[in-house]
C-alpha cells in the first residue's frame, strides 16, 4: 500500500452498524472486526475514488492534525487489512 493507491472495500467486505454492541464492525469472510474510533474514521473515507494521500490530506484538515501521523496510521491500518484480504488497492 502506497500513498497514490486508491483503497476500497472489495465485494464481500462491508461496514455494518451493530445495534447490540453499538459499534461499527467490518464484516468479511470468516471475519468480524469491531472498529475503534480511528479505524472508523479512516474506513468511512473509502469511496473508491480518492487515494490514500488525498484521504490523509482531507483528514489532516478536518481534524487539524499533523499529516505525517495521520499518514502513518492510515497506511498501517490499510496495509494490515490488505494483507487479510479485507481491502483492495487500485493503482491509477
Amino acid at each position, binding site marked *: 500500500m502506497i500513498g497514490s493507491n486508491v483503497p476500497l472495500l472489495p465485494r464481500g467486505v462491508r461496514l*455494518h452498524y451493530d445495534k447490540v454492541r453499538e459499534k461499527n464492525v467490518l464484516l468479511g*469472510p470468516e471475519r468480524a472486526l469491531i472498529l475503534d474510533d480511528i479505524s472508523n474514521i479512516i474506513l468511512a473515507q473509502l469511496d473508491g475514488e480518492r487515494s490514500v494521500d488525498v484521504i490523509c490530506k482531507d483528514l489532516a484538515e478536518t481534524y487539524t492534525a499533523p499529516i505525517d501521523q495521520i499518514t502513518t496510521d492510515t497506511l498501517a491500518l490499510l496495509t494490515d487489512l490488505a494483507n487479510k484480504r479485507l481491502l483492495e488497492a487500485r493503482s491509477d
Partner: protein
Amino acid sequence: MLAELTHVCPLACPYCSNPLDLTKRSAELDTETWSRVFREAADLGVLQIHLSGGEPASRRDLVELVVAARDAGLYTNLITSGIGLNEDKLSQLDEVGLDHIQLSLQGITAELADRIGGYKGGFERKMHVAERIAAVGFPLTLNAVMHRHNLDDLPATIALAERLGARRVEVACVQFHGWAEANRGQLQPTADQVRAAKATVDDERERLKGQIVIDFVAPDWFADFPKACMGGWGSTGLNITPAGDVLPCHAAESIPSLTFANVTDQSLAKIWYEDAAFNAFRGTDWMPELCQTCERRDIDFGGCRCQAMAVLGDASATDPVCRKSPGRVAVDALLEGPVSDEPFVYRVRV
C-alpha cells in the same frame, strides 16, 4: 452462528461432521422458523450466519433463506460442496446479496475427490461451479479437508485455489469426531506429513501475502496444547441443527449428559443465556484444578469438550491433547494405533 439447514447431501464423505444420527427432510425447520431464528440471532448480537448442512443447496428455499438472513442484518456465508448450485441459482443468490461462498474440496483429482465424496462426477461438477462462482464475482474460500490420502497434495491444493481466484484457503485437517472417528485408521495423517504441511503453509503464506489468506487447522493430536474449542464454550458461537436444536458446538451431541433446547420451544436469547447445555462448560468454574491453575486457562479454555468425551469418556476433563494432562497417554496410544487400508465407512445418505 452455524445454521445446519439440512442433513441431505449428495456426497458421503467419511469424515462428515454431521452426527451419526441424521435428521430426515420431513423433520427440518421450515422457512418461516429459520427466518425468525435469523432475526432472533441478529437481535442477540450474532453478526455472521454460516448456511451449511449437509448440502444447503438441497434446500429449495435457499434463496429465500438468504433474503431472510440479509433482512435480519446478518453477513451470509454459504458453505457448500457446489453440487446443486447451477447457474440460475447462483445468479439468484447474487441478486439477493449472498456475501461469500465457501466451497469444499475433497481432493485435487477427480479420482481421489470422487472416491472421498462417494459421488462419481462430483469433482468435475464442482470445478464447473467454481468457474461460475468466479464469473459472478462472489468472494470465494476453498475449504480443503485434509488427511492421509491428500495432505501430500497441499501445494497443488493451494495452486488450485490460486487458479480458481480464491481469496482464502482453509486447510482443515480432519478432526476425529462423528463419522471420522469410524475412519481414524484410514484417515490419520503421519507425523512426517503434518511437519511437511506446516512448512508448506509457512512458505505459501509468505509467497501469497496479500493475495490469498491461508488458515491452517493443524491436527491437534500432534500439538502440545489443545485447540481453544469455539473460543470458549458458549462464548462466541452456536450451532443450530436441521430440526432446530441449539448446540454450543456442532459435535456437542456426542456428550451424552447434555440435552438441548429447541428453537420451536424457546427464544434463541433464552437458550443462549439460560440453557443448561450452554452453561455446562461456560466460563472457568467447570474446569478441573489442572486448567483452573494453568497460565493458559484463558487461551485454551480447557480445550475441546467433545475430544475429552471421545478419548477419555469424561467431557469435563482437560483436553487429552494437552501435554500437562494425564490423559495425554491415551492420545499418544491412538497416534500409534494401526494404519488401516480398509474401505472407508461412508456417511449414510438421508
